[in-house]
């Protein structure tokens, strides 16, 4: 594929992510605007950091979820932290699933929480794949500067 085609693909992918509500365009664009010579791959750095931190938060959540008795308040708190984290990259679908999880916490519904957590993780992983694909396209299209 020539460069132009690749670049078009990148643009398409980006639009797809927004249209499908995977990502909040406002936040994503904000991140893109922060990219400059000092941080040419800023968005990718942020996404990487987000996923790395997510692992830590998931661990905390699972630990709390599988301990007995369940401390729903704590669980809610951890999920709140995670939710705040998702807002950093504007992950809409993931955030929505987080809200669901919090609802179950409020209702002290352990089963509901377990299921909701699964959905959160699913969305989280799906988005990850899309984003990795997106960044790869960018690299291929020569849009990524080698620092």
């Amino acid at each position, binding site marked *: 594929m020539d460069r132009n085609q690749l670049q078009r693909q990148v643009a398409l992918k980006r639009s797809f992510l927004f249209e499908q509500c995977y990502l909040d365009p406002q*936040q994503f664009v*904000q991140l893109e*605007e*922060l990219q400059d010579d000092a941080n040419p791959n800023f968005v990718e750095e*942020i996404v990487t950091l987000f996923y790395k*931190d997510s692992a830590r938060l998931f661990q905390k959540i699972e630990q709390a979820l599988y301990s007995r008795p369940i401390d729903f308040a704590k669980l809610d708190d951890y999920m709140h932290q995670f939710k705040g*984290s998702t*807002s950093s*990259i504007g992950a809409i679908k993931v955030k929505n699933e987080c809200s669901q999880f919090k609802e179950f916490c409020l209702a002290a519904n352990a089963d509901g929480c377990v299921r909701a957590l699964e959905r959160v993780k699913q969305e989280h992983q799906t988005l990850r794949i899309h984003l990795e694909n997106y960044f790869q396209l960018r690299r291929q299209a020569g849009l990524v500067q080698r620092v």
Partner: protein
Amino acid sequence: MESSFSSPRNDTFPAGLRVLVVDDDPTWLKILEKMLKRCSYEVTTCGLARDALHLLRQKKDGYDMVISDVNMPDMDGFRLLEHLGLEMDLPVIMMSVDGETSRVMRGVQHGACDYLLKPIRMKELRNIWQHVFRKKIHEIRDIESHESLEGILGVGWKTENRKKPDRNRKKPKKKKNRTESLIRSGSDQYDEGYFLSADDLTSSRKRKDVDNKYDDKDFADFSSTKKARVVWSVDLHQKFVKAVHHIGFDKVGPKKILDLMNVPWLTRENVASHLQKYRLYLSRLQKENELKSSCGGMKHSDYSSKDAQGSFGLQNSISIQQSDAAHGSFKVSGDNLVSQRVGTKSHESDIEGIVSEPVAEPKKGSNGNISDPQKTRSPQMDFNNSYAETKKCLIGNVPDSQKISTPQVHPSHSIALVESEVNFTEFESAIPTKYSWNEIPLNKAQKPLIQLNSGFNKPPLPGPHSHFQVDRVQSIPSISSRPSTAEEDVTGPAKSKPSYSECINTQGSHVSPSTTDSFPDQIKSCLVNHQVSEAISTSTANMEYQGFNLNCITDLESAQRNLIMGSASPFASLDDGFQICWYQGDCYGMNLGLQNIEFPEYNDPALVSEVPAHLYDALRFDYPCEPSEYSVMGQGLFIS
């Protein structure tokens, strides 16, 4: 002129604004750092609240503002906010994913300049410099008013500054708190600026302000526009509280307070703003107390009964506090404990006022001192008794033999409350129960807290709140080691209690007795803020020292243990003179040497004498916590 050495950023304000960002989320931290750098600000990031506090304390003038997240693992964002506001008077912006009105309101109540919702946009960050600028303007105004006052009086404002108004000096690094110098300065020379007329001053100041905004923070000079703010030291606050009590909380007004305080360099504006903070603090404490208090408030009011002062040395310290300015004493004694409470409650001039706070004064009740509404009934006795009693009482109306006075121990329920809350007592125990809390004139409008005390001596006291403290005493083994011990002992443990109550009181508006619960909160808050937990163990020891009680009445919740511990930590620093921060509802960290703790106002030498030994020892603890965080010392401060 200032601009000569001003860094480049000064010329292009707000560029170069030194911002400290605190957020436990690394992703957001990175984003914010990048955004702020885009705005040409100088950014420092921190993942933990305590690291942030550490950084800020190290370099007092190292930052222009702080942006902090509300939910953080090691410390509640609001607590950090209060610390910052009190200790450093820096503009703080809160951030959160949660934009619920109640939370935002809380943020504002705690002193936040602004509250941003995540996700945060660049444009929101571009304008944060306005908060820094606004503060500077206010400072200038304060200075100017000072100036004019000085002009009128023909007195040079002596500030201790760092010696010269040499603006060009980049650093004399006197990072000392300017206000401290201001306050403490005795005869330092006045910056020439001060001799200018108000107008000149204003203009020169304004100029300086802009130019020097980012100047070397070492500007110790008073003329430095950077910091002209008044540092409310323990002593000063004590005077303030005393004055407030003397006037009567209802009739209080900045002018009256200023007149009574008789501090030449202080302006009406300074007092007014401090009064506002104080009121907020008290009302917050009160609310917390009301929520929590099941006991019905501690009888802090009893404290007021200065009489108690006479009796025990320890008590004296407490009572002194009480009498003096209820608040003042608290504060001072506790140094950091939020003794603030003291002021607000019904302490009538005498009453230690503090008493009213939920401080588990109830213990006092047992002491008997408490019983007298305001007059320290046999202060010593009371104290001892109360202390012992409180201990007992707290536990459950322990009718200690010591209880001299009355049965008051209503504490049973209060005790229950107290217990939980009392945990602080450990904290408080340090604080000499002397507070006339018990004494606190119930008649006065004692805030519900006093009721706690009522249990103690005074039959009239309705609230068993006082017991509140008692429990704590018991719980605190270290402190109350001698629950029923003789008077001496009583004072010991009692000390903690009363002070505790005091502390608690300070938490919120003089802890209304009803809020025994609040007591713990207060304590907790005091301590909690500071990672008390570690310190607690040590603090317990302190509790015995009267001084401590006052300090941390903050949230009891975790407090009980923590409190004690927490208070302990501050003590460590006491030796070196910790910083006293008037934390709203929290403990004060004071940078006073222990010696400073004396309460000049308190004229009961006898009282104090007893304490010193203990207090100093207590203070010697090595509290893991930073002193500033716990003003537990408060009570202990009774040390003369």
